[in-house]
Every structure is written in structure tokens, then in C-alpha cells.
């Protein structure tokens, strides 16, 4: 039986970590993810877990400690945000290239500067090519559930890649919402034990990891990572299926909300999907055929599936909570547009950069996007595909 609770997103993640009971947690506090290691350290102090908690002196060390722990043969977890992730940067790539299936919670926040501690996705977008599986969570429930599924995905022999679970800083990390928790024993059984095939502390098999990998080999090793990322799709789907059997909660690569018969749709990630669902319901009541595609699995990117799901629409808006500052469009927009183009789907598409630095994105803002989409759907024309939502501008239209 599931347990009804009310928890913040950070509490939900810490609770999942308690139930997973990893061998090692190494973390350094940074807003808004600080509470995760904070709550978790109380579990350690109270003896609720038998995790070795490493209170490191920086995020670079946090990731390094997780790499060492995972290479040694144990299960490691960490959590961070924004500049903490920036400081991990070097080791992020080491973790994925050494194929160490650790799990990190990234509580999304704007990467400075100028200094800002509030939510956007610039931290996650910065590491989108780092070879980590990236799952996004609309709310505390999804953050909790993604954690429960993460180790099985990461540790699968065909995958062996680290997993990053994202949720929106403050918006979900610090908001208390209802949640269904699973019982400790059930989680323990679902997550299972970690038995790596090769690990440093195996005295029967002395190994070396992370050797010099020059011109003759790095290319192939990177391609292996890419192959593992492709394999991850199948594993993520399988684990979600098992998870649904256990909890009744269904997870796909993305959620299609009233998308089947929709004519216009928004593509977005994390908490904005909640606001968008509210707007979709309102518009539906007025007879507007609005829909939503909420991406859960951002890496690997479900290109064929997204192209298929959006193929019947008359206009699509992709919302990016991070500006790539490339004069062309946000990262999610580019991925979705590429998916559509390669699949031969010619649907008018428009990009909105929104919510930067924690700027509130209200239902009115989302509604204005759908209004724009209705116009685009009528004319079939997109004047400016790279737009800002909620930006103050002197000559605003």
C-alpha cells in the first residue's frame, strides 16, 4: 500500500534516498538543493540508513568522491544545483566516460552571473552533452519516482551510465505537495542490490580504470557511450513498466496531455507542465484544441517518438527555460526541431525563452503562447521563431 504524505520536492528526494539506502552520499550544500543532503545527513545521524556520508569541501570533490565510491563497487548518490554543477563540470564527464552508474539530483537553478539563486534550466542545459541520462520531474511525486527508477536504469549492463534527475528549484523543491510514497521494503526490493561485474575493491580481479585513451581509442569509447545512451531508451521503458505494475503510476519518455486530438501544442519540461495543463483545461473548456507534450526523458532524447507525437499538429511552441544565447534558439527547441525535420514533419514551430532566473511564468503567459499558436495555425507562418516570454521591453508589441 502506498503511503499518503505531504512533502516538498527536496524532502521527497531525500526520502527516496533514505529508502534506496546507497553506500555513499557525498555532497556540498548549494541553494536550492541544500536540503537534500541536509535531510539525508539527519537520516545518517539517526541510523536510518547505513550510508557513508562524505561531507566534502566542494562540489568538485563531491563528484570525485562519488566517482571513487562507484568505481570501488558501491552505489553513490549526490545532489547539487547551478554553480555547484559548474564546479563539478570536469568530473561530470569522468563519471559518464568511466561508465559509473551513480545517481545525482539536480535541483535546477540559474547559473550565475549575475548572481541568481532561482529556477531556470541553464545548469541542466550546460551538461546536456556530458553523457548523463537526464530525467525531468514536473513535481515532487515525479522526482521521488524517478529516483526509485534511476539506479535500475543506470546499473543495467547495457547502459552503465550515470543518471541525473532534475526538478525545478524552489518551485517544486521547496513547495509542499501531496505525494504517494512506497513502503521501505517494497522500494528496497524494487531497487535491488548493486552487484557490479568489475570494481576496484575486488581482490580477485585487480583492474585499472580511466587509463590514457589516445587517438586510436577515444573515438570508439565515445561511440560506446552513445550506444549505451541508445540502449537506455529500452531500459527506461522496461523499468517504467515494472514501476507501473508496482505503483500504478505510469511513466513514458514524455507525457502527452490532451495531445491526441490537439491542433496546437506546447512542449516543455518540469513544473511549467503543471501550469500548462491548467491552461490546456481552460482552453479546452472554451473549445480550443490545445495540448501539451511534457518531456521526462531529455537524455537520451526520444527523437522519433516526439516527431511522431507532434506530427499531426498545426503549430507547436517549445518552451526553453534557458537561453542558449546563440542568436538562434534554445536547446530543447533545437532538439525538437531537428527531430521533426529528420522525420520529414513540417509543422510550424516557435521557440519561447521563458522563466529565466526564476521569473514567474503564470497561466496568462502560457495562454498568450497558445493564442500565438492559434494565429500561427491559421496563417501557417512564423515571423520570428525565437521569442521571449514575459520579457520587459520598451517597444513591446
Amino acid at each position, binding site marked *: 500500500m502506498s503511503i499518503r504524505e505531504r512533502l516538498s520536492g527536496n524532502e521527497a528526494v531525500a526520502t527516496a534516498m533514505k529508502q534506496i539506502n546507497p553506500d555513499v552520499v557525498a555532497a556540498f550544500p548549494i541553494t536550492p538543493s541544500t536540503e537534500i543532503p541536509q535531510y539525508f545527513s539527519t537520516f545518517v545521524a539517526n541510523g536510518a540508513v547505513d550510508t557513508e556520508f562524505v561531507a566534502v569541501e566542494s562540489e568538485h570533490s563531491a563528484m570525485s568522491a562519488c566517482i571513487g565510491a562507484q568505481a570501488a563497487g558501491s552505489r553513490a548518490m549526490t545532489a547539487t544545483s547551478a554553480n555547484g554543477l559548474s564546479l563539478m563540470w570536469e568530473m561530470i564527464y569522468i563519471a559518464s*566516460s*568511466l*561508465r559509473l552508474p551513480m545517481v545525482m539530483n539536480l535541483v535546477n537553478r540559474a547559473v550565475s552571473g549575475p548572481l541568481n539563486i532561482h529556477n531556470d534550466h541553464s545548469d541542466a542545459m550546460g551538461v546536456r552533452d556530458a553523457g548523463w541520462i537526464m530525467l525531468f520531474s514536473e513535481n515532487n511525486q515525479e522526482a521521488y519516482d524517478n529516483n526509485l527508477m534511476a539506479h535500475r536504469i543506470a546499473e543495467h549492463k547495457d547502459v*552503465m551510465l550515470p543518471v541525473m534527475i532534475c526538478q525545478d528549484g524552489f518551485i517544486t523543491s521547496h513547495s509542499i505537495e501531496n505525494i504517494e510514497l512506497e513502503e521501505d521494503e517494497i522500494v528496497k526490493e524494487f531497487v535491488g542490490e548493486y552487484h557490479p561485474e*568489475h570494481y576496484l575493491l575486488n581482490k580477485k*580481479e*585487480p*583492474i*585499472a*580504470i*580511466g*587509463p590514457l*585513451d589516445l587517438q*586510436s*581509442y577515444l573515438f*570508439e*569509447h565515445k*561511440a*560506446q557511450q552513445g*550506444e*549505451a545512451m541508445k540502449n537506455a531508451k529500452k531500459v527506461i521503458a522496461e523499468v517504467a513498466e515494472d514501476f507501473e505494475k508496482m505503483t500504478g503510476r505510469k511513466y513514458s519518455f514524455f507525457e502527452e496531455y490532451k495531445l491526441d486530438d490537439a491542433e496546437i501544442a506546447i512542449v516543455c519540461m518540469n513544473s511549467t507542465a503543471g501550469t500548462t495543463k491548467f491552461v490546456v483545461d481552460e482552453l479546452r473548456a472554451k473549445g480550443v484544441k490545445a495540448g501539451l507534450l511534457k518531456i521526462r526523458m531529455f537524455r537520451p532524447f526520444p527523437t522519433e517518438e516526439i516527431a511522431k507525437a507532434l506530427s499531426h499538429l498545426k503549430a507547436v511552441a517549445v518552451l526553453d527555460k534557458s537561453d542558449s544565447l546563440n542568436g538562434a534558439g534554445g536547446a530543447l527547441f533545437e532538439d525538437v526541431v531537428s527531430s521533426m525535420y529528420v522525420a520529414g514533419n513540417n509543422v510550424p514551430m516557435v521557440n519561447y525563452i521563458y522563466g529565466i532566473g526564476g521569473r514567474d511564468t503564470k497561466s496568462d503567459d502560457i495562454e498568450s503562447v497558445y493564442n500565438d499558436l492559434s494565429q500561427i495555425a491559421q496563417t501557417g507562418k512564423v515571423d520570428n521563431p525565437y521569442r521571449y516570454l514575459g520579457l520587459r521591453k520598451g517597444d513591446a508589441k
Partner: protein
Amino acid sequence: MTEINSKTPMEDLTIGGNIYQAGNAREFKTGDWRSMCPVFIEEKCKQCGMCFAVCPDDAIPVGKDQNRTDFNYDYCKGCGVCAKVCPFGAIEMKEGTNK
């Protein structure tokens, strides 16, 4: 461990280049980027034992009789330290990869 080289397909390489075997440094040939080459002049060598002690790699083989033999160029990077310490002029540095 399987032998790997620049022709090995990606499927046969271990993930992350991990090496699941200890004591394999000998298999890693480190001498392929030499631009200076030491030449051993056996007649001049007094087997004093100075050269192999300063070789940073494994390029000067020493037999059970404690005597050195000719260079093993698989591991020689041509640094010239051996030639520098030789008191008898028994090692000459020549330009190029090979002697």
C-alpha cells in the same frame, strides 16, 4: 585481456578503456614517438651500471648476469639521459627514430 590495437572494432573494447588485468605495463609500447635514438657501442661499455639505473622507462634490458644488453626501443623515448651519464662514451645519440 584481449590484445587491442588501432584496428580493434569498438565492440571488442572494454567500456571506458578499463583494464581488467594487473601487471600489463609491459604491453604498452611507449617508444613510438622517439625523435632521438640512443646507439649502444658495446666495445666501449664497461658494464658500470650507470645507464639502466637512470632510464625512466624499461628501455635498457639487464640480464641475470647484471650486464646490460642492447636497447629495447619499444620503450625508449630518446630522452638521452643514459648517454649523458655514460662515462665511457658507450652511448651515442643519433637523430631520428631508429639507429
